């Protein structure tokens, strides 16, 4: 830039313009949008770890599981009003889902447009987890809608007794096709996390040659742990361990 001759008696050219808003300029770039996807993905991942651990209480009987379900509503009392924590978490998670999905949609459109002509000789396919991220994500979003209607709002639950999550859960998973859909969705979740966690680390700049193996190991471990932990519940119901 350098100094410009002053015009109209303007003093020094050292004015400090207000830079464009951080969030706006980051959201407009592909790198910033990916960072939003990575951060929201990690928020959802952290929630899933807690969710999976809570689910395993189902193996300790209706009393403990229903008590746990009740406690979630009272977290933070008496500092927080009843269900304030729950609703804060719900808002944060909904915002994460929306931001994650919108960023994925916008980036995917751009990605597809960037390769208008396909190769006649198809290159080797990349890993299954990597190339199922988009459709896997769509399947997971549809699963979440059904999952909330089934076990949160109880609209499609065969038992539908408020305050009795254990009985609702067992009634739902007693239908084999519901369990099958749930298990399929959890396998999709495992694949999504397998590529997603490692990819999020790259996007947030945590990747390095030294850390690469550790990051891949953590990604695989998280994917396996969450998939197995979630699948254990419908398997428990189907085998009669949970009834």
């Amino acid at each position, binding site marked *: 830039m350098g100094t410009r001759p002053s015009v109209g008696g303007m003093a020094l050219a050292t004015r400090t313009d207000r830079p464009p808003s951080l969030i706006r300029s980051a959201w407009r770039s592909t790198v910033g949008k990916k960072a939003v996807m990575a951060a929201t993905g990690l928020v959802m991942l952290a929630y899933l770890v807690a969710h999976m651990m809570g689910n395993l209480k189902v193996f300790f009987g209706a009393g403990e599981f229903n008590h746990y379900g009740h406690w979630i509503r009272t977290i933070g009392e008496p500092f927080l009003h009843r269900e304030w924590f729950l609703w804060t978490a719900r808002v944060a998670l909904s915002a994460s889902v929306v931001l994650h999905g919108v960023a994925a949609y916008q980036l995917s459109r751009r990605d597809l447009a960037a390769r208008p002509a396909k*190769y006649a000789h198809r290159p080797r396919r990349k890993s299954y987890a990597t190339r199922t991220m988009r459709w896997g994500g769509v399947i997971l979003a549809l699963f979440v809608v059904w999952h909330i209607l089934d076990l949160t709002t109880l609209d499609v639950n065969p038992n539908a007794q408020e305050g009795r999550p254990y009985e609702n859960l067992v009634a739902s998973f007693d239908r084999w096709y519901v369990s099958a859909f749930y298990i399929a969705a959890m396998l999709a979740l495992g694949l999504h996390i397998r590529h997603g966690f490692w990819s999020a680390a790259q996007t947030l700049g945590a990747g390095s040659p030294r850390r690469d193996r550790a990051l891949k190991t953590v990604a695989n471990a998280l994917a396996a742990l969450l998939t197995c932990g979630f699948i254990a519940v419908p398997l428990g119901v189907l085998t009669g361990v949970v009834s």
Partner: protein
Amino acid sequence: MNLTLRIWRQRDAAGPGAMTTYEVTGISEDMSFLEMLDHLNEELILAGDDPVAFDHDCREGICGACGMVINGRAHGPERTTTCQLHMRHFRDGETIDVEPWRAAAFPVVKDLVVDRSAFDRVIASGGYVSAPTGSAPEAHATPVPKPVADLAFEHAECIGCGACVAACPNGSAMLFTAAKVVHLNVLPQGAPERASRVLGMVDAMDAQSFGGCTNTGECATACPKGIPLTAISTMNREYLRATVKGGVRRGT
């Protein structure tokens, strides 16, 4: 060696193109892939046909001019440039598919020649150090630790051939841009423009028709110079650091 070639022929930027089949005979396995195409072109010219257009310059693997997708892989089956790929890596009687780089940002000019000036626009937005260049400075005037010099050099090896964009399912230029950003940003000479460089180059990259990164790693696999995939993570870190610090874009 006798080979069947299926080559993308396209008369000009506007025209439609098609894979066209040619038979070549008497190919030595010591020929480079470009020499094999030279051989084909000589026959085409003698037969009064239009020779296959392709980019090439140094033929030493250091200039980045050549590049084509051979059997679905940028620069073919070996980690090298097309000019340094030898016919011994193919079998006698093999059918070889030869296509141009495919990306919205790299429009086909003719046959296997694509317009890569999108890369030049990315470089022009920050892929340099603003310093008076006269006679070379004294080499020890600015000490650079050996590991840093090695890291910079590893990324400076990028020759801008575009194989990363051609191999990426999203036609993304992240590896190219990251190589340039990391090369200069880790060096003391590049430090003063560290923030404006990464912000400007990512902006310029996004302003072209390149896609985004989905961390498939296809780029680093295709790169004839072995630019590591971690370059992308380092550039992401530089970008986020510059954004959080409110880094100013060049010229604003």
